[in-house]
């Protein structure tokens, strides 16, 4: 049955190949980007969640003194 299905679609082999090419090109671009991205920018981005603009200290203190 599989052979019949494959024959029924003209050039079906191209689909997996297209998928690989698209993904790998994209992935290579992404890798290139993360290698060259500005260090300071990365530093500020990764710290974003720790400074949420709250009016209290909950986000910057480790809550380790809670009662049992």
């Amino acid at each position, binding site marked *: 049955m599989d052979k019949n299905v*494959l024959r029924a*679609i003209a050039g079906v082999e191209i689909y997996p190949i297209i998928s690989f090419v698209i993904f790998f090109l994209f992935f290579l671009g992404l890798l290139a980007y993360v290698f060259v991205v500005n260090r300071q920018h990365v530093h500020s981005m990764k710290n974003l969640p*720790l400074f949420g*603009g709250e009016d209290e200290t909950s986000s910057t203190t480790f*809550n*380790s003194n*809670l009662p049992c």
Partner: protein
Amino acid sequence: MEVEQKPLTTAPAAPPQVVPGFVKTVDTFFYDNKIVRDFGMATVFWGVAGMLIGVIIAFQLARPEVNMGTPYTTFGRVRPLHTNAVIFAFVGNGIFMGVYYSLQRLCKTRMYSDVLSKIHFWGWQLVILSALVSLPLGLTTSKEYAELEWPIDILITVIWVVFGWNMFGTIARRRERHLYVAIWFYIATLLTVAVLHIVNSMEVPVSFMKSYSAYAGVQDALVQWWYGHNAVAFFLTTPYLGLMYYFLPKAANRPVYSYRLSIIHFWSLIFIYIWAGPHHLLYTALPDWAQSLGVVFSIMLIAPSWGGMINGLLTLRGTWDKVREEPVLKFMVVAITAYGMATFEGPMLSLKNVNAIAHFTDWIVAHVHVGALGWNGFLTFAVLYWLWPRLYKTELYSKKLANTHFWLGTLGILFYALPMYWAGFTQGLMWKQFNNEGLLQYPNFLETVLQIVPMYYLRGIGGVLYLSGVLLMVFNLVKTAKSGQLLSNEKAQAAPLTPLYLTNNAADQHTDGYWHRWIERRPTQMAIWATVAIAIGGAIEMIPTFLVKSNVPTIASVKPYTALELEGRDIYIREGCSNCHTQMVRPFRSETERYGEYSKAGEFVYDRPFLWGSKRTGPDLHRVGQKYPHSWHYNHMMDPTSMSPGSIMPPYPWLLEDDIDYSHTADKIRVLRKFDTPYPAGFEDVAVADARKQADGIARELKKEEIEVKSDKEIVALIAYLQRLGTDIKVNPQQAAASAQSNAAEISH
């Protein structure tokens, strides 16, 4: 030894330099904590409900009498209630709780609209309530994790749009130029779930709460598992990864290990995930190239998934002493580890040789529960334990109880998963075992079921342990809330965004050439590119199957269902039979020996929806037609143990009592003809008469077998359907042509 916590954080980068003449002030505003609390309460409430239903159905498999003898409480109807409650009610509300808390803080603004927040909250609860009512009533499409009928599908769409509107509105009003990685995951979730839901819910209504899928057979299966797999990806995974990237740094008080890795994690995950759906359909009648594509991309998924896991665990480097003491971090570590295990196991299960054993067994059930109980459950609990003291401006009532919860939950996962793995291996191997004579070692399917019943008990006990831990959490959270007061509106301050034309900061002006930084600032572009990423995968996976009609080889002898068989099929759907029975004989000798000829794509061209199923608690039914006399089915539905001693299938006595509902038969024929189902013109007008005639015939044959039954009872329609299953290809072509001719002639009169 107590180690002093040294935050590894630094203040955010200095605000951009401002050109003279632009006066910058600091805004004071308030975060909406009440909506976060409401979603939190909802996730706890529905979590308990969904898990309780899970425990009940676990014991139903071990003891059929737990089905309680009513249509509304049988496994087939309640199992979808469990999956929907856990996925959409527990995890869904958990997502919204986390998103509403973190989005406001990451964007340094209140949610865009309190009204939209409320509509979103109550609308989502209405969706859940609709499921709670409709599923036990048997109002279902039968497509896994998309069982809800068309009016509820529309409601889901509306509420999802409200969520999106509120989210993008908030992002538009942000006081932080760049979008943190968690927000990318939220955007991808929002868009992809919308696409998945709309594409998979394409159905044509027959009546209120009854519809037929716009796709048939192989296409329906492909769309369904593209949806099903990506529902796991984009409802259970990506939003929770967003939560991980926000709440883990918060709880550990240190930034994520590698922001670069998170960029790779995000793009490769959303890009690859969407392709992997066909691995749910290996060895089925799905075209081979689509199966191979699914396998390749599933294996590739290990890389981004483990990248994410490693990123999460390494965020805790240097704070492992805190993990020993802090339940929030303990829950997070187990959650991330479970994510890593499940995302390693998933690709392994997609290998064809592993899949051949694991598919349709309890192994898959174990796999999804490692994800659900470990990853989603434990991360939700971690966020709740972290949030509640902050929302109520107090301290957690009892850290000891939280620790007890952690251990009960961990033991619960082990007690759940290990017996299910054992059951899965056992059953998968027993199905395939041949003896020295070359015959099946266990030809009676029931033998393979009875072997694993003890595992079903253990799994139930695992569920009880897990649920009891959750109940401790409920107590702990209630006491915590009572000891404090909800800070509904939390005061915050942040500088407004400097308009780009007024800043001379090179990075903000995007003059340094980094395209990703450009995209990080622009939610619309981010949304478009994320959609493009998922659309490419979805399109390449499905377009060939949609466009090429000859993709599914037609079989001349395969005919549409008769009106009575159609009604019988709808009863099969209503009772949720496909939750335990597959209709897909795979091309293995062990299966063709047991069931008969393997299933062909062309046999399902009139199946709307497809009913291939995904789990064999009972045997496959695709070739059950004409295998047993009518009386066997009659007695079996009345009391399964009368035909199969020891069977764990619940009885269905109401089918013997209830009348067939013919009120929508004509509409059903009309809808199906719209999809090119070749019913003759005018058949809808005589469909009921045709059904009654066929029913009379079955009742007469039952009478010969000494069973008196009125021909208008539901059991007759179900027997008609079951006896038809898989029989079309047994008909020889000349016979088929002759019978088609006579059918057409009969129908047209």
